[in-house]
């Protein structure tokens, strides 16, 4: 089938680009080089829908060029029909072709919207792990409530295990996205969103924020390490050794605006912190540190 081969070609092209990338050690965000079931399903829908639409728009484009050229003023062989302005049959086709296409694509959209809804837990024999995500100005905080540890600007997750994310924000909106795992979701203050993802196998991935959140936005990206079960357990053990403690006080420090924070681990985490952030009993991020003065009028700094 054409769709199948197109999918294969594009996936392979993605894989090749990914391989080149892993050789040169650069970061890879390619959507077609998916590393999890959600991303793969979404890349697949992307390709199928594109192929269906190309089947409509390519002939339309060709017809546009052919009609325009054949009926050019200088072409004496073209028949001029100055009064031809309606045909019931053509109108029938003209309304039905887009309608049928949309009915078909609408079906894909409806089914996909349910099957790939970010809130839907993923099928797996293994027990999912939970990660609480907080977007801060301008870094990411990942809390592992079952393990009692937390990490800044670095996400570690076990391979082939569903991960259930609960997300919120300390201040402004962001959107949490690991392109090669699929499905992004917004993080918003005072609210939680849910996202379910899974990575197929071990490896190094990248995530980023996709909703503009202010001056430090471009630095809101983070490496994602997909580890084996042992690797993950080892990482948790290492994290627990950290003397840093995440509680409302240290969170208050963390919530202040900063960019380029190095990854950092917390060995102890206040188990009620995440719910406190959502309920805003823990104060939200304070925003620009010095309200008033020059900053209130125009941005500081020169170019």
């Amino acid at each position: 089938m054409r769709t199948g081969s197109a999918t294969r070609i594009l996936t392979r092209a993605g894989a090749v680009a990914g391989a080149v990338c892993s050789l040169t050690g650069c970061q890879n965000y390619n959507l077609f080089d998916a590393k999890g079931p959600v991303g793969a399903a979404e890349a697949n829908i992307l390709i199928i829908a594109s192929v269906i639409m190309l089947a409509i728009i390519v002939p339309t484009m060709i017809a546009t060029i052919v009609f325009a050229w054949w009926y050019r003023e200088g072409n004496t062989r073209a028949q001029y029909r100055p009064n031809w302005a309606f045909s019931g049959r053509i109108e029938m086709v003209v309304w039905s072709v887009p309608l049928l296409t949309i009915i078909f694509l609408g079906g894909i959209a409806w089914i996909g919207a349910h099957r790939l809804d970010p809130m839907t837990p993923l099928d797996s024999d293994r027990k999912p792990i939970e990660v609480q995500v907080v977007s801060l100005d301008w870094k990411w905080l990942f809390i592992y409530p079952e393990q009692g540890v937390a990490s800044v600007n670095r996400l570690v997750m076990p391979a082939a295990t569903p991960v259930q994310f609960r997300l919120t924000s300390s201040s402004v909106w962001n959107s949490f996205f690991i392109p090669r795992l699929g499905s992004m979701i917004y993080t918003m203050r005072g609210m939680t969103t849910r996202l379910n993802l899974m990575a197929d196998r071990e490896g190094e991935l990248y995530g980023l924020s996709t909703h503009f959140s202010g001056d430090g936005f471009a630095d809101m990206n983070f490496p994602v390490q997909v580890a084996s079960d042992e690797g993950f357990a080892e990482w948790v053990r290492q994290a627990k050794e950290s003397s840093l403690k995440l509680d409302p006080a240290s969170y208050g420090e963390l919530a202040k605006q900063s960019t380029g924070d190095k990854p950092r681990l917390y060995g102890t985490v206040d188990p009620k912190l995440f719910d406190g952030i959502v309920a805003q009993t823990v104060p939200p991020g304070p925003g620009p540190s010095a309200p008033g003065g020059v900053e209130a009028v125009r941005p500081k700094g020169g170019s």
Partner: protein
Amino acid sequence: MLGKLTLDAIPLSQPIPLIAAAVVGLVLLGVIAWTVIAGHFPYLWREWITSVDHKRIGVMYCILALVMLIRGFSDAILMRSHMLFAYKAPGYLPPEHYDQIFSAHGVVMIFFGAMPFMIGLMNFAVPLQLGVRDVAFPTLNSVSFWLTASGALLVNVSLVVGEFARTGWWPAPPLSEATYSPGVGVDYYIWAIQISGIGTLLSGVNLVTTILKVRAPGMSYLRMPMFCWTALASNLLIVAAFPILTATLAMLALDRYLGFHFFTDSQGGNSMMFMNLFWAWGHPEVYILALPAYGVFSEVISTFSGKPLFAYRSMVMATMAIFILSFMVWLHHFFTMGPGGDVNGVFAITSMIIAVPTGVKIFDWLFTMYGGRIRFHTSMLWSLGFMLTFVVGGATGVLLAIPPADFVLHNSMFLVAHFHNVMVSAVLFGAFAGYAYWFPKAFGFRLDEWWGKVAFWFGISGFVVVFGAFYILGLLGMTRRMQHYDVADWRPWILIAGFGVVLMLVGVVAQVVQLVVSIRRRESLRDETGDPWDGRALEWATASPPPVFNFAAMPQVHGEEAYWTIKAAAREQLSLRNEPDYAPIEMPINNPTGVVCAFFATLIGFAMIWHIWWLAVLGFLGAFATFVVFAWRDKAEYEIPASEVQRINRANRTTRLEALQGVGRRRAA
């Protein structure tokens, strides 16, 4: 005394905005000085600034749009060139400037580039196509224009005094709330958009009333040219949607100024409500811009194919279907906020359904060309360029309407490519097509074709290169609004996009050169008869430029394509219709209400931005006084004597008769 305004507000330490502003300021001052010294000011004041003539107001809207398009394009050049230096490096624009630039780019292009261009074309052409003398409320029309200009002025003042919003072109809370954006940037945004938004709303009321109530005898709805239909749909959308924007920004202003909590995400406020309200305006806005452009393409393709528009009634239906559907899709702007499968599914399907009437339009334009005799005038080239590129934008739009696809493409460069693909290809190409098409009607001479074609070819190839690269960047996972990046995969495509901007720049320069060359060669490009393209609607039935009263006698409409019917009869009999009985015509007197009102509105806006409360009160009193003076005027109209009408009309009849005799001679030979 001066609120928050101090000398610190002027960015003396930042050369880029300062130099940009200085250049703009000097050019502006130079133009003003030149008009005053050369003695043109009284003429400009009498004939243009205070004009209530819909044609002149339409032209001024388009001039404003052209200037602001150049401003918006300069922002684009800054962004693209900055990104060339932003790979594993900070680039040359620090984030606080880069953020202002992409915010200003969007605001300027949408509110002060695309909107005035479309409103300008509608203002100019709709009354002419309807066969009437002016819009329903001529002075209100002038107020609308000057309020729009006032908003544009405030956005540009923010270059020198203070800063512009750093939130993106739609200021989403909580980022736009006082806590996270304490500067005046968001306030500039709010007041510029509020003031110009009132102008737009009034303009919508005016054009809706005109189309519903002021039409030539016999011009029933189903005899109106397609452009009038799309203008009707677009202005109905303005009337329905702009109040939502005004209310939303008023709520944001209450949050920022008086500590309310509509969108603060605390004490019961919810930022998602802003998202809903903003896009309840924002998606109809897309069609407010696109529909008039569809109208332009309908006129151009039909005229230059030498055929009536294919399936006119079907096109009317499609237009009105888009009008209604455009209010049912706003939620697709936030599928990724997790509304759940049912909500996402419903809005995915409503969003896709819009593609049906749009697809119908594309096919109907295609069959308008079928069996035609096509002349490749610049405006026809823009229309063909639109048809070829817009289908891609439409397809990627349907793609983004599929929630699982949107889950990986939302806010990506793919999205940026998509909406530029539809907005540039429909609205900007439509604006350029309309500009080339109606220019001779407005000024009495045609635009130079050679430079027009250069502008087209460079413009469209640059557009394909830039946004083609953006599509790929989106698939490679790049998100929008990043000030720097360190992903090697993205670099080649960012370089390619940078090259595409150079091509576009050539196109823009060619567009400017075209205007200069055409003005210099205007005698050889003169449109003598008033019908340079062998047109089909009533605007071509009068002289170019039309007299202030448009038509010496109200045209009688007997079918679709009113002017084509008249012309066909004239060609058959080789003579014009009998001369009408000339009667005196009453026309509204020019008055400065609009410009004075906008002056006070600018004061109000500036004062509110800088918390100079006494000035805001003063501005409000001034605006109200202006209204009172206008409302109590003694004399609203002046009379053009019948002899003058006769003289003007006979001049045009003579040239048309000569042209007709030319046809007769050719036929005999």
